[in-house]
């Protein structure tokens, strides 16, 4: 090829192609469109935060800092008095129960899928792929379906456990019940349900993190005689600490923001309560779902303020999770 070029062609036959750093018009258009889309996304998402902040100003002006300490939710009339305290407390309690339920089970099943499940069960059934796919599918199942199941199946099934807890562990304040104990519509049931809902998400993400453990280190440990339990403890866990924490925090973000399942289970009570087995509770998401249409402009502003608190909470958790993962990555 090159010899032909060398010998056969006269210099004048090869006209130099023009080279410029100026982009062509279609390219500039393409860049413009794509950049606009990117910036629009940025602006829209930024506007949400800004709008929530602006609209909730009315609520903050009316209540001041008391918005974070008040317990009732009266937004109409001459003396409005409302606050996010009981809802925030409830949100945190539900998320805490959910994480207690979800994390051990999710980590265990992620390890089972990754380390113990045979690739082929009885030589033909692709167990591992099947489990991975069904976990992913369950993570996509709508929360309304989980909510219905929780309401019709889980709640009746958990009444006995709630009664047992309050009978035998009633001396602990969180398991105490009032004069007339009602064991449905409680934090315990709502938290367990939300926990079951975030389980597949945490499983899916932590399984993926576990599967990224370098194969060389794994094989090295095995060749030194480590059993699977030792491999998990000394190779898989150290490598996936950060990613695991990220997966858990992501699940936590989901648990904090879950609205529908909580709304179906819990009955709204504005007294701040830490009694887990007794009926009645609160959560920011459920509060918004219950009250969005009532309470006048001040009520809407109050709900937007509550929404802003929830929004800020999940935002911080997401960013911190990203941070932790990054640091874990740097540290190896």
């Amino acid at each position: 090829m090159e010899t032909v070029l060398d010998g056969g062609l006269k210099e004048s036959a090869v006209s130099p192609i023009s080279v410029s750093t100026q982009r062509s018009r279609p390219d500039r258009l393409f860049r413009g469109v794509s950049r606009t889309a990117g910036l629009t996304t940025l602006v829209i998402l930024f506007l949400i935060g800004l709008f929530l902040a602006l609209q909730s100003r009315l609520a903050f002006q009316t209540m001041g800092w008391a918005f974070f300490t008040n317990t009732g939710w009266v937004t109409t009339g001459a003396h409005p008095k409302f606050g996010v305290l009981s809802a925030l407390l409830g949100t945190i309690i539900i998320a805490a129960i959910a994480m207690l339920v979800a994390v051990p089970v999710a980590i265990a099943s992620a390890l089972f899928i990754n380390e113990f499940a045979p690739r082929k069960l009885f030589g033909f059934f692709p167990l591992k792929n099947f489990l991975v796919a069904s976990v992913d599918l369950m993570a996509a199942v709508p929360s309304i379906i989980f909510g219905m199941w929780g309401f019709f199946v889980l709640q009746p099934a958990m009444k006995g456990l709630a009664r047992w807890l309050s009978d035998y562990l009633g001396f602990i304040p969180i398991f105490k019940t009032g004069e007339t104990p009602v064991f449905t519509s409680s934090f315990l049931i709502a938290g367990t349900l939300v926990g079951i809902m975030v389980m597949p998400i945490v499983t899916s993400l932590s399984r993926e993190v576990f599967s990224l453990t370098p194969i060389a280190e794994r094989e090295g440990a095995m060749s030194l005689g480590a059993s699977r339990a030792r491999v998990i403890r000394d190779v898989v866990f150290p490598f996936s600490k950060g990613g695991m924490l990220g997966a858990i925090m992501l699940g936590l973000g989901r648990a904090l923001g879950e609205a529908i399942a909580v709304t179906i289970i819990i009955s709204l009570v504005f007294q701040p309560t830490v009694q887990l087995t007794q009926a009645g509770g609160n959560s920011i998401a459920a509060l918004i779902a219950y009250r969005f249409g009532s309470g006048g402009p001040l009520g809407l502003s109050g709900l937007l303020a509550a929404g802003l608190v929830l929004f800020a909470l999940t935002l911080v958790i997401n960013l911190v999770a990203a941070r932790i993962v990054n640091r874990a990555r740097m540290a190896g």
Partner: protein
Amino acid sequence: MEPIKIKPLRPREFKPSDVVVLALTALSTYSITWIVFHQLTLFSGALGFVVIWTLLFLGLYWLVNRQLFTRQVAIDRFVAALMTLGALLMFLPLVMVTSFVLIRGWNLLSAHVFVATQKGVSSLSDPGQAGVAHAIVGTLEQVGLAALIGVPAAVLTAIFINEIGGPFTKTVRVVVTAMSGTPAIVAGIFIYAVWIQAFHQGYSGFAGALALAVLLLPTVTRGTEEVLKIVHQDLREASIALAAPEWRTVWSVVLPTARSGLVTSILLGIAVSIGETAPLLMTVFGNKLMNSNPFSGPQAALPLLAYQQIKLPLQSEIDLGYTAALVLFLLVFTLFVLARIFAGGRLKGPSFARMRSRIVAAGLGATAMPDDLEANGDGTDFQNQQRPTGQEGELGRS
């Protein structure tokens, strides 16, 4: 010299005799639990029984293996049993939820429910009179509109982040990452306050679509970005070397290469957003009648209909909720299966097999997935090889 005889310990080797040990342990602990429960004490309740049985089983299983083999084997078997129990505990509710919606809804399905609405249905009318056609139309229109708004914006944003870049790239990525965890209810109340309260637009399918688009945008952007990342740099360079303009490179090289992954991430984003109930509650409001115009008046939607029906007193009303839930589940399932089929499409090989779960993770809202956690050096990870690996020396791997 006499060679030292070592009997290898292989806890992973699960021989028939080990199966017998496992079965006998389970059986004997079951018997003990039964005696304790029904003869010695007057405990009751299936939950307590299972908990005590499990604890006894784990303890005895460890002890038996400790006696028969060594400590290492016992620990390994114990951990294996524990993990298996964890997986059972995980899949039990999942199987229960799936079978719950399938069993309760299946008998209620008929051709009638797909054509009828709740028109003229009252508590006095026949149980089988109502249908979910209005909700199906509503859901399809809302999700379709949301995809129409959200997907192009998401893909272009991902192209901006990954292909073009600029001073704002990092900001856009951070904001998108942070926003993909936005609670659905917050997106709902945002659209409610802007569109319905501030702009006085009234409830409509379009308002719901806007809320869903706000939720769809970050997840699909993240998924698409993950897909674009795995398109080999060589392909882009080859295209540029052929003097293709930038848009041509993206349109004819990058996007077709990433097609299957792109479709997967879009379908997953839609599958997740189709089941959102909370934002619809305050934007489309629900309607008993057919309203096929998404731009005016309240509409019905499948998740919303299910939510509104299950708290009603009559069994026939609750049954309609089950029907809506089943149709919704089938829709999500179809989308999910389609997404997985597409994920197995053109891009094959180890690098894509890994990416597939990455895309799924991003589609589920994985904001915090590590970018560079992958093991380097298996020759499949082209992206990582081109990145500066300055921190390599700091990797203190113990």
